């Protein structure tokens, strides 16, 4: 990379962005005006008039120059301010101590010139591009210094939600990163939902293309049979499926590598820093005090092949910043677990055996899965009189549902370990949520009539980050209350009573597991 650019003498003054943006802006404007430019080119050639084509070059250049000249920023009086626009002036301003994240993004053109875009995140609910504090185009070194300045000024690291778990790993200068990317992990890419989405997209696109080319009807099976002379239909079908699987796998692996190439996760200056990207590089910092926990995701495909992924539960981020919370992309399970331990500063929440939810919860999983499946099976059986093929789904539905129920029941569990609430549930997308006790800002205890009969509740720990809550599904009442009371004794203990209720409806929850054995 090149030098850090001119260091501003008086930081209180309005400063322009990097002059190298003069090269970036015209390229961008040209791309944006491409249809108009093409139109101009055609019109110019047709009318024989010269000069029109020149206009097509001059306008983007002039626009880029204007954009550069009218955009400036400053950090003064404890505020970050960004001023832009020629006709409609925008001045965006935010107090430095409200800054929660500073992300550095570098698209290919920026990287070529040694520039990055600095996005200053304040957790605003606004999603409008106009209201994002983007400093588009600073030299890399200056951007990094700016990030350090802004994050140091932010008070989040001092007070707030910090609890013991966060500071488990003391800083010792520049340490090796906790996680470095291994291209071999890309083998997990086809097994994630991204692969499925790509497949669906391909199928949808293909069908539309066929439709545009004259519809599926023209693809007469007999003509295919003629052409494929002798190749059994089943073999041809299998070949088509195989080709589809291979092509989607290649696409998924490609997407994975482009997004995650060079993924590194390290910790210094009281925050986690992660960097990734093959073409467009992204650098994100997560303040220790804003890291409330992690989610260890194990979709079925990853679980079956010994993989997993890790996301951070970050408080105070806006909705549009979900993606910045990825801590480990799909990777081998030991890597994911080791990273989780390092990030949490505790091994317990990752390794501790979970307390199971018992037979009532298992029964509930089975009834909830088998009920709809049996309905489907009955409907299919009714149709089986027309075609025996309907027998297939009629048999498959209960089997699939049974497998799902067994797996979902096996997944259920919770624990309280080293200051973290741990909850696991799900089958197709199994997840182990780990939430710091300090980040729990309330409890919801919910039970339907059926759950009350079975002596179960769904305990929800609410939090300001991630999906806003961590749910402990179908846990026996006594276990749920014990978990909440041990996690936040000051909050819950005033509302406890020891004796089980005797018949008074208001003393909910009245049902105990013993009432149904």
């Amino acid at each position, binding site marked *: 990379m090149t030098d850090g650019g001119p260091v501003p003498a008086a930081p209180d003054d309005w400063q322009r962005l990097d002059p190298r943006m003069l090269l970036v802006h015209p390229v961008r404007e040209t791309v944006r005006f491409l249809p108009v430019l093409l139109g101009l080119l055609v019109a110019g050639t047709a009318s024989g008039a010269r000069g029109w084509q020149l206009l097509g070059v001059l306008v983007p250049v002039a626009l880029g120059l204007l954009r550069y000249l009218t955009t400036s920023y400053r950090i003064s009086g404890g505020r970050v301010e960004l001023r832009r626009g020629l006709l409609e002036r925008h001045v965006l301003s935010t107090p430095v101590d409200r800054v929660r994240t500073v992300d550095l993004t570098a698209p290919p053109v920026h990287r070529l010139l040694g520039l990055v875009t600095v996005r200053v995140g304040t957790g605003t609910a606004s999603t409008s591009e106009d209201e994002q504090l983007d400093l588009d185009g600073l030299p890399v070194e200056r951007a990094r210094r700016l990030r350090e300045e802004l994050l140091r000024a932010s008070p989040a690291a001092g007070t707030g939600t910090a609890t013991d778990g966060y500071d488990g790993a003391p800083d010792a200068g520049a340490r090796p990163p906790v996680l470095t990317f291994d291209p071999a992990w890309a083998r997990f890419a086809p097994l994630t939902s991204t692969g499925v989405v790509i497949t669906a997209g391909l199928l949808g696109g293909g069908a539309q293309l066929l439709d545009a080319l004259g519809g599926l009807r023209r693809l007469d099976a007999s003509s295919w049979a003629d052409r494929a002379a002798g190749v059994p239909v089943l073999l041809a079908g299998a070949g088509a499926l195989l080709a589809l699987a291979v092509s989607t796998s290649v696409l998924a692996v490609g997407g994975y590598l482009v997004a995650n190439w060079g993924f590194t996760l390290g910790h210094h200056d009281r925050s986690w820093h992660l960097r990734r990207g093959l073409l467009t590089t992204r650098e994100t910092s997560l303040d220790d005090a804003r890291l409330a926990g992690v989610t260890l995701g194990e979709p079925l495909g990853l679980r079956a092949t010994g993989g997993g992924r890790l996301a951070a539960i970050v408080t105070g981020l806006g909705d549009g910043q979900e993606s910045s919370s990825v801590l480990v992309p799909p990777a081998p399970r030991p890597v994911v677990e080791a990273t989780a331990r390092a990030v949490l500063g505790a091994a317990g929440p990752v390794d501790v055996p979970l307390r199971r939810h018992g037979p009532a919860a298992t029964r509930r999983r089975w009834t909830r899965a088998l009920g709809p499946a049996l309905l489907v099976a009955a409907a299919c059986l009714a149709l089986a009189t027309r075609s025996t093929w309907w027998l297939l789904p009629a048999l498959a539905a209960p089997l699939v549902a049974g497998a799902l129920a067994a797996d979902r029941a096996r997944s259920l569990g919770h624990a309280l370990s080293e200051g973290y609430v741990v909850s696991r549930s799900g089958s197709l997308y199994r997840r182990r949520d780990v939430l710091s006790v300090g980040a729990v800002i*309330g409890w*919801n205890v919910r039970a339907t*009539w059926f759950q009350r009969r079975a002596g179960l509740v769904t305990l929800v720990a609410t939090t*300001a980050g991630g999906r806003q809550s961590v749910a402990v599904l179908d846990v026996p009442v006594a276990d749920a209350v014990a978990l909440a009371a041990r996690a936040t004794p000051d909050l819950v203990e*005033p509302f406890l009573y020891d004796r089980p209720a005797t018949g008074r409806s*208001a*003393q909910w929850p009245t049902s105990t597991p013993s009432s149904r054995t």
Partner: protein
Amino acid sequence: MTALLRAPRHRVSPRARLMWQVAALVEGAVAIGVLLLVDLAVDQVDLPWWGVVAAVAAVLAWVAVVPQWRYAVHRWEVTETAVHTQSGWWAQEQRIAPLSRIQTVDRAEGAVARVFGLATVTVTTASAAGALEIDGLDRARAQDLVAELTLKADAVEGDAT
């Protein structure tokens, strides 16, 4: 440890029952009205007379049972450290939030609620999943509660996330 969560201490206003009944009755009447309109306007739909009777019976049963059930469940309490609510009927829910994490306190009076002199107090925290709502409070009681909560939430420092 076999401790359980006790219910919050205070019931909502007894007038809430009547308010819920009126609201349910109005909603049911509108639903049946729409049903009859569709029956009259669309030729393909031919509602048998017992269908209408069943719908009316369902609405009446709902009006008779659900508001009473709700009233038996709905409770609230504010201590020196926390807000505790209980609501629902078929699905019941208890919510606890510490005063230190309160972000806003909101008092609302709907059109029907105003007729009965009732109000709804909603306490929000930094979590989208954690809002506590007390429905059917006496208006004066609601005003006092809002003042009390605002005072107590003010006394705590930090940004409540």
